[in-house]
Each structure stands twice: as structure tokens, then as C-alpha cells.
């Protein structure tokens, strides 16, 4: 019994404020894929136009890579990591072990966002949740349309925290950290990080 004394992990590990990098906006909503109207779709987009953005990624080395992993790898290969301006995350359905149809679904999601931000090959995808089920495309594409159509994007703390919640599955708290740093000439810059995971966790990404 003493071993299972519960820590209030939310109070311990979830921040109440944050500092966020310039030129990014985020949005999230409950598209209906997850039960109980939980947040399950999020988008982070780069709105800075002073120069092209850079992107990098590492992916699972599991032989049966999910559709979003295969798709995102192709995008990074095709662009050499330049000009990536959006990341779409969905939870509740992993779009994994879904074969050619899963890849097509992933492509449709990315194409919709690329068109909405006026770019080509500019969107990465991440999915998590039940394996072996296809994306409920009506809910996902409808949710994306709502986020852009009603311009739900913002850069405030609450929007970033909701984005962190939208990628959770069996997590008991959202994982969001942010901090400011300085370069050697005193120039200030910001890092923000979001992660999720609670089970099926022993990554060996490359």
C-alpha cells in the first residue's frame, strides 16, 4: 500500500506559466476521435517569414513503421529539412499497421494543411493511440478545417498547454517545458518542448 502512495504529478510537473519562441502559433481541439470529448488534434505552425525554417527528426527503428512516420520521413528527405512550417499531431488513433490506405490518409491530412498554409511539402505528422485502426478522416479533416476556418491559433500559455494535452493518450499529465537561453553574444532565444508517453516506451530512434 505504501508503495502505491499517489503523487500529485499534475501539481508537481505541469507548469502554470511559460515562455514561448517567436513566430509560432498553436491550436488544438476535440475532433471526436477520443471519447469523452477530450482534446485529440493539435497543430503547431511557424508564422515567421524572415527566413526559411529548419526541421530535423528522429523516428522509431521498429520495422513496422506507422504511416505518419513513413510520411514525415519522406517529407524531410524531399525538403532536406527546409521550409517545414507545420506539425499536425493526433491522438486516439496511431494510423499504424494500416498499410497503403493509412499512408493515403496521412497524405490527405498533410495536403489539407499544406493548402491551408499556402505551402508545399511543409507539414509533418505525428499520431498515437490504438494500432490497427484507420484514421477517422471526417473528424480529422473537419477538425483541421475548424482550426483554420475559425482561426483558433494563438501563442499564449493556455494554447500551448492545450496542445500538450491534445497528444496525450494514457498520460496522466501534459508534458510541457519552456525556457529562455542566451548565445555567447547575449542574444536571447527560447526553447519549448512537448512530449507524451506513458506506455509502449522503450525508444531507440534514429
Amino acid at each position: 500500500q505504501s508503495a502505491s502512495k499517489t503523487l500529485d504529478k499534475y501539481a508537481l510537473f505541469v507548469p502554470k506559466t511559460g515562455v514561448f519562441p517567436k513566430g509560432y502559433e498553436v491550436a488544438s481541439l476535440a475532433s471526436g476521435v477520443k471519447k469523452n470529448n477530450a482534446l485529440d488534434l493539435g497543430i503547431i505552425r511557424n508564422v515567421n517569414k524572415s527566413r526559411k525554417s529548419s526541421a530535423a527528426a528522429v523516428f522509431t527503428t521498429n520495422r513496422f513503421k506507422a504511416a505518419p512516420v513513413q510520411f514525415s520521413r519522406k517529407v524531410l528527405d524531399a525538403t532536406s529539412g527546409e521550409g517545414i512550417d507545420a506539425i499536425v499531431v493526433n491522438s486516439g488513433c496511431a494510423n499504424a499497421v494500416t498499410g497503403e490506405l493509412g499512408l493515403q490518409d496521412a497524405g490527405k491530412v498533410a495536403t489539407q494543411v499544406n493548402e491551408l498554409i499556402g505551402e508545399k511539402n511543409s507539414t509533418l505528422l505525428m499520431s498515437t493511440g490504438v494500432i490497427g485502426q484507420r484514421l477517422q478522416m471526417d473528424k480529422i479533416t473537419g477538425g483541421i478545417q475548424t482550426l483554420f476556418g475559425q482561426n483558433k491559433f494563438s501563442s499564449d500559455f493556455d494554447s500551448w498547454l492545450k496542445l500538450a494535452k491534445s497528444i496525450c493518450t494514457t498520460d496522466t499529465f501534459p508534458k510541457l517545458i519552456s525556457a529562455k537561453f542566451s548565445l555567447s553574444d547575449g542574444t536571447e532565444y527560447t526553447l519549448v518542448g512537448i512530449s507524451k508517453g506513458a506506455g509502449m516506451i522503450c525508444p531507440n530512434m534514429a
Partner: protein
Amino acid sequence: TLLGFIVTDLPIKSSALQTMLTGAVTRSFNCISVDGDMSTNDTICMLANGAVDTPVIDESSSDFKKVSSQVTEFSKQLAQLVVRDGEGATKFVTVNVKNSAEFKDARTIAETIANSMLVKSALYGQDANWGRILCAIGYSKLGNYESLDESKINVSFIATDNSTPRELKLIANGVPQLDIDESRASEILSLSDLEVLVDLGTGSEDCQFWTCDLSHEYVTINGDYRS
């Protein structure tokens, strides 16, 4: 599944960003385990949009190393939050393997300890069954025994609350300490943060790995995941 992204307003050349991220993940997200299962979806990505008005950072920049180490520390924090939230977890466990001839051996040994169901169950039950730690070290899939010399290995529990004695020696230079202070062991294992220290004494490479205990709740959650 592990998903995550790190986002910055620095301008960083994409090839340098990939080097930075890969290096950070090697010491953070690739050094965690909740249950030993590797997902089909694991993805960590990093975006740098260059909104800060400063010269683009590439691998020859004087700030490349500094920014890389900041990204690595940041990634460790994010990775550790995932372990702290491990399904059913009641203990956050740091497995510190140090003084190894090879980093890859230190990582293999740390990961093997971290993935041992028997070690994780004992930590959940606060049972100082340290023989299981040595057993896990013994079956680690090492290419050779250059890093693992039975006569030089030291294994300890480390108190994470600054109480003393901080270190409880379980094996000293390959000799099992059969008369350990069981009440001290129970005190250390009752903490929610635990540290297992393995000093291989064969080199200078270190690996920190993070895991959690294995509880009844883990089985409950995963027994009917799809519903």
C-alpha cells in the same frame, strides 16, 4: 508511444539541427524505458524558424556546442517527464552506469536493468532484492566483456533525499555485501525517486538511463487498452 517536439526561434542550418537533435536524443529519449516495448510511431522532431535576428548557426559556429548541450538537457527533462508518468508508475528510477570501457556497453547494461520485470517488481514492492540487478547485468547482451569485469564491479543504492549514508553498497569490487543494513535499504527504497549506481571500473564512459517500477496498475491499464 513516445512523441515529442522541441521548437526554437533560433536560425539553425537544417543539417546542424539534425546533428544537434540526434546527439540530444542519444542521451535522453533513447535512454528511457517504461515497459521495454518500442512503438511503431515513436517520433521526436525539432523546428527552428529563425525568428531571432542573429546569424544562422551551423556546426562550425562557436555557439553550436553550447546550444547543443542546452537542447540535450532540455530533452532529458522532457524524456524524464515521460518516465515519471509511466503507466502505473510509483517510482522514478535513475540507473547510473559509469566508468565503462564503452558507452554502448554502459547503455546496454543500463537498459537491461531498466527492462528487467523482476528488478521493476522488486522496486515497486520496495524489496532490496539487489541480486536481480546483478542478474540483469549478467545477461546483458554485450558484444564482449571488455566493459564488464566481475572483479571490478560495484553496485549501490543511492539515497535521493540527501539523507546519509547516501550510498548503500550492495557489491564492492565484485564481492557481494551479504550483511547489508536492511532497514537503511528500506528507507532508501521507500522514496519515490530511486537511483541504482553501477560502477564498472573498466573505463570512463557513462550512461544515465531512466525507468519506473512495474505495478499492478500497469497490467490493469494494458489489459483492456482498446476499450
